[in-house]
């Protein structure tokens, strides 16, 4: 804990929250690190409430009981749909739940830095503050890729590519807080891979019964873009009977489907920078988010960018907590005088 943890005799809990499209995580100064899938569900009616036994469900729990619930994924496509689909309420519930998971002491003050998708910060600034401020004493909101960059000390001449579920966010760091021009968001991300994989599997195995949730699980378990020697076989029911299906080619095709857009945008972002610094940035590209778990993605991007000169792409070691750890670092480094004004 930093020296700033204790001020005016009060013990403060610093938290960094990564509010993601697919997963949300919290890292706290009491060493707690937790995550949930960004799904919130409310029982549809009295009977559903009896069945699920809770007024609100989160993550995997909500997905498992989705037939009894009004299920909301509040940051789907990287933005909060204000006033629609109970999105803001869902964000509030996620934040409340994450803070509970971090286990603050009773009446302990909570100072939070929340990382959100770039578009969401651009569009929903006030909505996010409104949703979070109820549960914390002081709050600052930043973009997810910036939180990652701060946490990994990539403050100068670097490019962070945060491949999430709804969006892929690009953020150029050049020794200052990124401006709008330094950031870009595209919709080619995890959900797009799911859609492609669902469609490829539907074309190949039209008698088999599978849904988007199953397809997402296949992707999370097997995603790759490099040469993989092992077979990828999954069990999918056909006429009620479990049958093994080979999905290796479909997984590769679906994962590769987002990469041309990512490579193109990477090049476009680097081309915007002063030519003197372009080479430095090219050698400091970091892939974060769930997309960094696609096997071979760093090599694939290096290869596709090679025609513009040599470059170095690396993946974060802990994509699940890279955003929340960075946000926590920001919170702990923030001078006390800045917190006090909020």
């Amino acid at each position: 804990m930093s020296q700033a943890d204790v001020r005016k005799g009060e013990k403060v809990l610093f938290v960094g929250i990564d509010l993601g499209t697919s997963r949300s995580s919290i890292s706290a100064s009491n060493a707690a690190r937790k995550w949930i899938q960004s799904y919130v569900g409310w029982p549809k009616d009295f009977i559903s409430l009896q069945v699920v036994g809770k007024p609100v469900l989160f993550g995997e729990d909500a997905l498992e009981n989705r037939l009894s619930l009004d299920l909301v994924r509040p940051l789907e496509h990287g933005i909060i749909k204000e006033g629609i689909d109970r999105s803001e309420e869902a964000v509030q519930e996620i934040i409340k739940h994450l803070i509970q998971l971090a286990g603050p002491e009773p009446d302990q003050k909570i100072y939070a830095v929340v990382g959100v998708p770039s578009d969401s910060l651009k569009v929903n600034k006030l909505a996010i503050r409104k949703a979070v401020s109820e549960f914390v004493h002081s709050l600052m909101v930043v973009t997810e890729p910036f939180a990652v960059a701060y946490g990994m000390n990539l403050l100068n001449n670097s490019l962070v590519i945060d491949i999430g579920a709804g969006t892929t966010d690009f953020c150029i760091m050049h020794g200052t807080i990124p401006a709008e021009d330094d950031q870009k968001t595209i919709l080619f991300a995890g959900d797009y891979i799911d859609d492609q994989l669902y469609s490829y599997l539907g074309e190949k195995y039209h008698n088999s019964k599978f849904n988007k949730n199953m397809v997402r699980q296949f992707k999370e378990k097997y995603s790759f873009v490099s040469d993989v020697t092992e077979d990828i076989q999954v069990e999918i029911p056909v006429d009620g009977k479990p049958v093994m299906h080979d999905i290796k080619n479909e997984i590769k095709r679906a994962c590769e489907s987002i990469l041309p857009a990512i490579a193109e945008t990477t090049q476009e972002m680097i081309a915007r920078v002063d030519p003197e610094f372009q080479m430095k940035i090219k050698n400091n590209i970091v892939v974060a988010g769930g997309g960094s778990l696609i096997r071979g993605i760093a090599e694939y991007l290096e290869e596709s960018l090679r025609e513009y000169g040599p470059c170095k792409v690396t993946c974060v070691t802990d994509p699940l907590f890279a955003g929340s750890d960075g946000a926590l670092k920001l919170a702990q480094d923030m001078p006390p005088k800045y917190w006090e004004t909020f």
Partner: protein
Amino acid sequence: MPESAAHYEEMDLNFSREIVKVMIIMMAFLFPKKKELRLRQDILREVYEDNLRIIGRKRQAALARRRPFFLRKPFLVALLTVLSVLMHGNFATTPFSLERRVSANTLERKPVSRPAEAPQDRINPSDYNALMGDAKMPLSRVFGLGIKTIMIDPGHGGVDTGTTGKSGTKEKDITLDIARRLKARFEKTGRYTVIMTREQDVTVPLNRRVEMAVASRADLFVSIHLNYLPSRPINIIETYYFGPSSDAKVLKLAEEENAGSQYGLSEFREMIGKIGDTMKLQEAKGLATSIQKNLYSNIKKENGNAYDFGVKRAPFVVLLGVDVPAVLAEVSCLSNAEEELRMNTESHRENIAHYLEAGIMDYLTKGEATYESGRRAER
């Protein structure tokens, strides 16, 4: 001994060299750290200032950088005091007094030019035709017909999602939200009864919407929709009233919006027979023009990529079936990525509702004003 002295001297020299080396290494190690620390502090300050901007607050005075002494308040006050003492009595020619005089002039009443009294002409039958075709004076105003009930129709709903943006924003959700906001705005005035064709996300066929408008004896019907133009990344705003159109794109749009109307051919023919209703068409065109003008002029200020596609005629079933002035406003374009993002903010939807309200109110009050001023002039 001399040898050992030389030896010590050499040792001293080596020791000094080592110290210098260590110092150089330490400096090399410390300076980048200090530079990095400064960079970090700057970034933290920017994060703080960025968050202050979000909540619309300025940096606290205590946190602001110290200004140079000649810009500080006490110095400026003292300077102004000294200057005013030195220049005492010379203010008569300063710009302040001129300004006062100019502003005083603006208060003076300008001569009002009254229109010359029109000679009383004998009434000819052709004057009635002119009255029917006079676009400047809507017939409802001439006959003193007021607007009491406004029906707002949020486009699509339920299983009919309408268009969907790339980020998954559905037309049915946005139109419903804007309609609710528009309704709240009109209800606040206390002058109108406002009815909506749907209050929730439910499927309402077009013929049902028309039936509701007829049954509720609505005086005005405003249907809210969003456009989709995949071929061009622009935001287009257009407003329709019922009428024939030869534009293939408009006919295609009408085909899409008319899908699922559930009207039979005979009912449709019967409705087509009503097209000659001069009053309805005349009013609808005026209403459409007013809405379009307000929507476009305001949205253009916020989004430079907005284009005015104007007021158009189109054979939308929902406009045809309603007996009163009816318009269909395409208030935004979901295919425009920037516009889609903005449509997900409550403030933008509130703004759209505001512009629609302003368009409708302009139309409702303009006629009254024109008619009333005309009457005053006649007296």
